[in-house]
């Protein structure tokens, strides 16, 4: 059964049709890359799933239940976590408190949240900065921290919007390794990225959007070599 399903989902902003009747499924334990040029509707699609936007038409299902119109809080509590393109951390709270807040809000007991936070901080190499305010961390560390918050209550679904953008290669590898590890444990991922080598190496399946529609969906290598995908990225036939 699919964990997340979109059925003919529509979303417009004024005259702009950001998502144009997208139908798409994310299966249990899948690790899917969502690619496409800027303005193709990837982030809007994530927002429609995470509850930050309501669709104008169509249905969004999480584990078979309709979730369109539900608040992001309820969707998060139902097991779907989101990482944003522009990093969102609680800047005046310590890195540890960022994780603890997420854990407690998602129903963990104090000892369980503390143990989980400690483990995530160590695995992501953030233990030395655990007591620092998140606003004082480097951009890459803030990304890692937000990333870590998605895993306070496993196994879950994570929507990651540009997790590797503007991140040092070492941190990028830390993140990719963590995704692989959680994926092996049964975690489900939808990863938006422009970093094609990482998408090719990490994701088994890829979905490409252009102008609000899905133009390719299948094994990552096949999607990346699809002429329609190449044209969408480069804006001309056979230029790749």
């Amino acid at each position, binding site marked *: 059964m699919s964990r997340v399903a979109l059925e003919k989902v529509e979303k417009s902003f004024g005259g702009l049709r950001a998502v144009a009747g997208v139908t798409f499924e994310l299966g249990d334990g899948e690790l899917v890359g969502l690619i496409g040029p800027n303005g193709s509707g990837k982030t809007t699609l994530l927002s429609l799933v995470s509850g930050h936007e309501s669709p104008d038409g169509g249905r969004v299902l999480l584990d078979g239940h309709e979730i369109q119109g539900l608040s992001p*809080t309820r969707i998060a509590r139902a097991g779907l976590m989101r990482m944003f393109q522009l990093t969102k951390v609680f800047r005046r709270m310590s890195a540890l408190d960022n994780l603890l807040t997420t854990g407690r*809000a998602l129903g963990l007991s104090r000892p369980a949240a503390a143990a989980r936070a400690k483990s995530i901080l160590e695995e992501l190499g953030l233990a030395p900065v655990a007591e620092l*305010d998140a606003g004082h961390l480097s951009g890459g560390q803030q990304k890692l921290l937000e990333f870590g918050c998605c895993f306070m209550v496993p196994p879950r679904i994570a929507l990651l919007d540009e997790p590797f953008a503007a991140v040092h290669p070492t941190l990028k590898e830390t993140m990719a390794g963590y995704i692989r590890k959680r994926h092996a444990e049964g975690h489900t991922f939808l990863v938006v990225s422009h970093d094609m080598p990482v998408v090719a190496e990490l994701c088994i399946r890829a979905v490409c959007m252009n102008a609000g529609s899905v133009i390719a969906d299948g094994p990552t290598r096949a999607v990346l070599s699809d002429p329609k995908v190449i044209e969408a990225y480069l804006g001309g036939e056979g230029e790749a």
Partner: protein
Amino acid sequence: MRRPGALRALTPWLPLAFLALVAPLPLVVTDPYWLGILILSMYFALISSGWNLLAGYTGQFSLAPATFAMLGAYATGLLCEYAKTPPWIGMIAAVATSAIIGVILALVVMRLSGAYLALTTLSFAEIARLVIANSYNFTRGDLGLGVPGIFESRVTWYYVVLGALAAVVVGLMLLLRSPMGLYLQAIRDDEVAAASRGVDVVYWKTVSFTLSSAIAGLAGGLYAHFSQLISPELGLLTQTGLVICMVVIGGIGTLLGPLVGAFLVYVLSELLREVGGVQLIVFALVVIVIARFFREGLAGLARRAGLGKLA
């Protein structure tokens, strides 16, 4: 940023240490007038602590803290006047009335933020004040309403209000160490991120607004029985401005800040009273300097000196 140091272990206790420091003041300050000033400083410290919970820890900028104190004062004043209830029932009614009106207002305004929230609460504040001022037959309007006193001795009053302030500070300390404290601070830092991580933003904002209103109601109830005369002037915007000055100068988002700010600003305000309205100019300038150069106020300066986060 958290800094290492042995002094950090002491930081959670700084607000209580400050209250312990001011506790013996009646031994030194024997003039009833100045004892009254210190009691009123604690009245403002109560309102400031409540407003700081909302603005400093939850990031919601209400312009109605003095209004909720006024509502608390009138709740007990009117009950004593018309129902002849004992003052302690009036005090409970003061807290309950402000909390109930607070929760009703919160249900309306807590989906707003920033300038919209400020303007909505400002409108509410002015409406509430004008209703009380114009309900002359019921409230006696600007002539003021007489309220029965409780204690004769100002020293007794001093310790009663200090006890209430200590109870509120301890309550806030416990609250901020609970998951609720984490949720409120998360909402302050980023509402979208908080909601995405399972925090029920509107619910916790409503709880914070209600608690803040209840604390102001407690302050207003105490003030009513202490001063024995209340008027709609309690809810003037200048009173709210004074509360904001106290919190900003003392240190917004710290427990110590509103306490230090309230004593400092109110006592200085009295010292400057002889030179007319200049005190407001002085406080406005201090707020500008602090907002520009020391955004965490006096408590922030202590924090930079190594005294940590909960100062």
